């Protein structure tokens, strides 16, 4: 199978990125309060190391990872912890989640973390992983998976190939593009650190063909580093080319098993933003306390990319952009294809916040009335995961878990291509997003039922065997006694 065949499906859609990429990255204004949700990364929530009324310094660790998959959290400012309480969080669609609230004293007094490592090649790969974990680094592509956990699970004999994902395929989001334009050297530094931590033989930086400035900047930085292990690969700007599995298919001509991980075929994929965050932590000693956030859409006066400290309220970022226009209609975190609608802007920026869209009716036309599926098959032609969305939709009502599992519902990447082309305006991806956890739970229940059955059977067999042995022993005991009399 060739790369082009593997990147089947997908859409060429209007990118809507010009508005936010005109100006360079600017620093977002500081605010009085920062809200740091403890569960903002994938895995388990972090455990607080501070308590209310503690003084904290900028970059000080304020929560440590729970055992298993979890990440460190650091204070973005110096000041005082005023509460640890549930606060609305964007990654929970506005539902409250336990958060550390810090009042900013405006002095930015720094906490002295472990000394910055000038030459990371001096430390062992294991120490490098550990060091990356201590920086609170998580994947900045959107899923916020703790990077150190990903690196540890990807270690293999000859070292996996490293893939840096700069294919920012989703419309409206431009934080990676401006990062590559302005901070290409950070990305290359981070790439070399990752190569070392993974004992990896080579690194491919994937970038889309519609961002020439970013390509030029990246090329310059790679040439300057003169590291033969690092190469740049230009991929076609097709949505969702930047999906992890889709990008690996395009770049390496290999398919990740549907029930496996990229590590299974010797690849580990990281976002370019993650690499830059690693560079800042290793080189400058700055943990992941800020990220670039794209604020765009027709609903704000001036779109742009902002270097934003984690915990900054969305409302403050909107104010930096000159506030809402009268055309503002919907607030979205993420891109226009996979983003989630939010009810209000009193929510903190988290590590996974790559983009805030203040959308007007021009940006996002309201969806029309849903009509019955006419089985045209357009959805299966655009599905980048090789699924049959029309069949999945069929088996959702009534919920047929066997058929849904057989048709690969759990392999749906929720990219929304099927929605986009559906002539009947069926919100397919949304339905699949809701159904996936239900199906996963049901399959889990099946597995545990099988395990319970096996233990029940084993126990009954054991009890029967013990009973038989006991009877045999009793019979043997009786025989010698009875023999003389008989």
């Amino acid at each position, binding site marked *: 199978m060739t790369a082009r065949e593997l990147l089947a499906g997908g859409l060429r859609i209007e990118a809507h990125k010009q508005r936010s990429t005109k100006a360079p990255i600017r620093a977002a204004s500081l605010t009085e309060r920062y809200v740091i949700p403890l569960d903002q990364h994938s895995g388990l929530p972090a455990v607080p190391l501070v308590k209310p009324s503690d003084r904290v310094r900028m970059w000080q660790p304020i929560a440590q990872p729970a055992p298993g998959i979890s990440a460190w959290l650091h204070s973005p400012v110096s000041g005082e912890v005023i509460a640890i309480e549930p606060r609305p969080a964007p990654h929970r669609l506005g539902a409250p989640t336990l958060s550390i609230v810090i009042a900013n004293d405006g002095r930015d007094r720094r906490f002295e973390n472990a000394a910055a490592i000038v030459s990371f090649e001096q430390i062992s790969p294991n120490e490098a992983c550990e060091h990356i974990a201590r920086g609170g680094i998580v994947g900045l592509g959107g899923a916020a998976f703790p990077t150190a956990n990903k690196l540890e699970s990807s270690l293999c004999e000859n070292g996996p190939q490293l893939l840096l994902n700069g294919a920012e395929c989703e419309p409206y989001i431009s934080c990676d593009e401006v990062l590559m334009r302005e901070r290409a050297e950070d990305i290359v530094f981070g790439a070399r650190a990752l190569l070392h931590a993974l004992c990896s033989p080579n690194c491919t930086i994937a970038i889309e063909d519609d961002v020439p400035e970013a390509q030029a900047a990246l090329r310059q930085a790679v040439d300057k580093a003169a590291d033969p292990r690092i190469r740049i690969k230009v991929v076609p700007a097709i949505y969702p080319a930047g999906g992890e599995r889709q990008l690996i298919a395009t770049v390496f001509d290999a398919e990740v098993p549907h029930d496996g991980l990229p590590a299974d075929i010797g690849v580990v994929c990281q976002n370019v933003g993650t690499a830059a965050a690693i560079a800042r932590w290793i080189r400058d000693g700055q943990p992941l306390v800020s990220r670039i956030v794209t604020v765009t859409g027709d609903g704000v006066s001036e779109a742009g990319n902002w270097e934003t400290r984690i915990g900054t309220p969305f409302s403050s970022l909107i104010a930096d952009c000159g506030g809402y226009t009268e055309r503002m209609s919907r607030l979205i975190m993420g891109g226009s294809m996979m983003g989630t609608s939010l009810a209000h802007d009193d929510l903190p920026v988290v590590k996974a916040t790559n983009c805030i869209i203040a959308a007007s009716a021009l940006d996002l036309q309201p969806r029309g009335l849903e009509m019955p599926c006419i089985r045209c098959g357009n959805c299966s032609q655009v599905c980048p995961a090789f699924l049959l969305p029309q069949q999945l939709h069929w088996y959702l009502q009534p919920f047929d878990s066997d058929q849904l599992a057989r048709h690969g519902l759990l392999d749906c990447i929720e990219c929304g291509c099927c929605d986009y082309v559906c002539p009947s305006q069926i919100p397919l991806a949304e339905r699949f997003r809701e159904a996936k956890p239900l199906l996963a739970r049901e399959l889990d229940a099946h597995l*545990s*039922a*099988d395990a*319970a*059955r096996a*233990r*029940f059977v*084993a126990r009954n067999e054991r009890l029967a065997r013990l009973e038989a042995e006991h009877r045999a022993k009793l019979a043997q005991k009786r025989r010698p006694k009875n023999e003389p009399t008989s």
Partner: protein
Amino acid sequence: MITALVTIIILAALAGVATVATAGAPKEISLADRIDALLPQTQCRRCTFAGCRPYAEAIAQGAADINQCPPGGERTAKALARLMGVPPKPVGKEFGVVPDSPAVAFIEEDACIGCTKCIQACPVDAIVGASRHMHTVIAADCTGCELCIPPCPVDCIVMRPAPAVVR
């Protein structure tokens, strides 16, 4: 004409061979097996039988109804009705209440005297411990059958919500 006939005969013969070859060594799946696969394997005996398998066999023989499994709830009752080709009906109240969410047993370890009675009662070997030593429930293996609760002489076993599965 003759060629056509011969071809058809040969093809038919081949098809017959193929059918026999694929059908070779059939693995019999009995009705009881198929019913058992739909049951939640809680082994709680609320259906009045000695476990899920005996209940499945009873249904297969027509000795039990399809609505006797409270842990399976409406879903299981519906699935059984579909399999047996009978109209669906709600779980009978006499067999117990359908639980809202899964629960597992938990031993309050300070109170446990180490009598091993719960270990003997557990149908799926989900309790570990030794005589006069503290016992504990392996939450991941507990089916929530509640059979360990009545034998406990010090009432130190309570039901708690099942831990969430981290994927």
